[in-house]
């Protein structure tokens, strides 16, 4: 998702100026955090990137409850979600808070290898989280140590409208043949088989993940994400063959690169498209009263006998290495991570709770996802969370080009391979 910050300047020096601004912004943020003159140890500072008003309210409520219980002051500094992605790099170096929100997996590892997140394995052990977290624990683990706590999870897959499928007599596709057949009937009903808006690039990454996980499986997929397999490797041929076949069969909504996922979601909501490949947050594109019509289906099987692997991305919360009050941060995290507090927080986001002892959700989509996750053999996170950010940007751009000009496949893959060789040297 694009952030809308301006960075132009007459003299073309905006890289430095931008850094200066980010630095200044962080300094101001840090100054505002430090300003209440409370003795050290008596305060926990949090930088949050939460966009939703409900989530912010839950965090504020938990913080207030913690203050009332312990007398320790909790200061929350809310930042814009997209701006935070840039700011974190400077505030982890200068003016770190005690706790910050981020994303697990490779995005977390970026900071772990630079020694910017604190090892919190002790907290995980103290709270006995290992059995309660299960599969999500691996998302915050590097070399056997935990560097964060997993937060809301998103299970990616196909979403459709129950009423539309019931009315047309369709069933969610289980195989590739059924997928093509559904495409045919959707088109003859005047609908796009699958809504996809690629203006922000990332939806193409998810679609690639699904094809690759179904065709090559998790291990080979992760090897590609880690830069160990070439983009020109023959294992990717069936992936792009399948994709090309779908493109040529007009499977995707036309002109996808002119709009983002919200508009694609609206196409699904307005019954102009039959399917969409996304996470449970697709419901925000639906009017409240129609949300119970949304249903989830796994991406169809492409190679028979392949175990079921899915994209399951997990947000996370961390203690920066340079935090002033690491003990206080651990204590607050333990409180915040208690099943009832965490449950409320995750529920406000519509995500999947990371620990298995959270109270059951009132959201049917979340409960389905929790059940589905139990059937999954293994998980990746998402293209732009699993691979290097530099590689991800070029990769998703290449995938977008492929969706529009599939005949350029060779050039695109050659270019991606060049990028891979540069990034993973």
């Amino acid at each position: 998702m694009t952030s809308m910050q301006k960075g132009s300047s007459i003299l073309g020096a905006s890289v430095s100026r931008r850094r200066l601004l980010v630095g200044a912004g962080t300094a101001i943020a840090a100054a505002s955090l430090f300003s209440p003159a409370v003795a050290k140890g008596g305060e926990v500072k949090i930088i949050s990137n939460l966009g939703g008003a409900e989530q912010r309210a839950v965090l504020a409520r938990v913080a207030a409850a913690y203050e009332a219980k312990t007398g320790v002051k909790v200061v929350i500094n809310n930042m814009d979600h997209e701006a935070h992605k840039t700011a974190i790099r400077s505030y982890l170096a200068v003016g770190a808070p005690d706790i910050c929100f981020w994303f697990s997996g490779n995005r977390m590892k970026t900071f772990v290898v630079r020694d910017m997140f604190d090892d919190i394995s002790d907290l995980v052990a103290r709270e006995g989280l290992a059995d309660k977290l299960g599969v999500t624990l691996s998302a915050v683990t590097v070399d056997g140590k935990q560097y964060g706590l997993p937060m809301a999870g998103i299970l990616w897959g196909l979403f459709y409208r129950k009423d539309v499928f019931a009315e047309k007599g369709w069933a969610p596709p289980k195989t590739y043949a059924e997928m093509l057949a559904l495409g045919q009937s959707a088109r003859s009903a005047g609908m796009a088989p699958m809504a996809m808006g690629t203006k922000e690039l990332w939806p193409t990454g998810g679609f690639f993940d699904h094809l690759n996980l179904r065709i090559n499986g998790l291990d080979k997929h992760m090897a590609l994400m880690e830069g160990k397999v070439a983009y020109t490797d023959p294992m990717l041929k069936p992936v792009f063959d399948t994709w090309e076949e779908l493109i040529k069969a007009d499977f995707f909504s036309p002109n996808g690169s002119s709009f983002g996922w919200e508009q694609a979601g609206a196409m699904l909501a307005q019954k102009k498209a039959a399917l969409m490949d996304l996470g449970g947050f697709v419901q925000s594109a639906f009017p409240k009263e129609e949300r119970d019509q949304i249903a989830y289906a796994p991406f169809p099987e492409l190679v028979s006998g392949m175990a079921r692997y899915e994209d399951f991305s997990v947000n996370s919360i961390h203690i920066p290495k340079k935090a002033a009050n690491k003990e206080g941060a651990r204590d607050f995290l333990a409180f915040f991570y208690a099943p009832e507090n965490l449950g409320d927080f995750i529920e406000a986001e519509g995500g999947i709770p990371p620990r298995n002892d959270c109270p059951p959700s009132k959201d049917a989509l979340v409960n389905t996802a929790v059940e589905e996750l139990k059937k999954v053999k293994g998980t990746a996170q998402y293209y732009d969370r699993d691979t290097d950010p530099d590689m991800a940007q070029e990769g998703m751009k290449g995938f977008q080009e492929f969706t529009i000009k599939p005949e350029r496949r060779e050039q695109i893959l050659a270019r991606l391979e060049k990028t891979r060789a540069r990034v993973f040297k």
Partner: protein
Amino acid sequence: MTSVWRRQLRRISPFLFILPGALLFGTVILLACVETVYISFHDWDGMGAMRWIGFGNYAELIADPQFYVSLKNNLIWLALFMLAPPLGLALALLVNQQIAGMRIVKSLFFMPLVLASVTVGLVFGWVYDPNFGLLALIVQAFGGEPPALLSDENTVTYAIVLAGLWPQVAFCMVLFLAGLNNLSSDLIGAGRVDGARGLAMFRHVVLPQLTQVSFIALAVSVIGALRSFDMIAVMTAGGPFGSSTVLAYQMYEQSIFSYRFGYGAAIATVLFVIMAAFITWYLLMMNRMERRG
């Protein structure tokens, strides 16, 4: 003694007055420029250690097909933005007449200048939307297939430049309106006595008096074209697949999304050189004009 001191003070005072501005300009602009050039010789992710690679970033830039796409798009922006001064002049002449209601028309033409360019980009993004955009509705009304201007690599840059021209033309119009208000009535009167009217009056009496303003309008348009960034970020994010990227946007993308500050700085330096060349030419022309009086 005091008179010596006073004379000294008089000599220093201009420097004292300039000092705050010079300091600010020095740190925010000059120092930043120098630092950018310095960073461009490094491999740096914006956080960790910087690694000196000499001209490595520039060597990569020369071999990067995306760089040439950006450069080409910058040239398209530059060429089309040259339309802004003449169009602005035409509009200024149109709305400079004493007709009832012209004030409203004038402010309507002025409006895009008040809007943030992000807003302009968003509005045009909607106009171009192939599903519900104004353009699609118009084309459909004539029975055509709505074009997806922003999804086609061949049309996308032109579509964005058109959106960018809207406020730029308004800006030029305002400049020329100010110029038209400053016309010497003596000269016009003299021209009228000599029988000049219509096109001849405009060509030989009005236009020469607008040279200075035209020059400013040209400079503003060139700079506007080279710094184009926000419209692209809002309308296409450089897409589809980087085909609407310009140098400023590529620099942003590389630094912020790909964590490659060194490479971004190298792009910034190239953009800086292009702008510096133009600004040098501009200052030379300015000087010459001033010397002529």
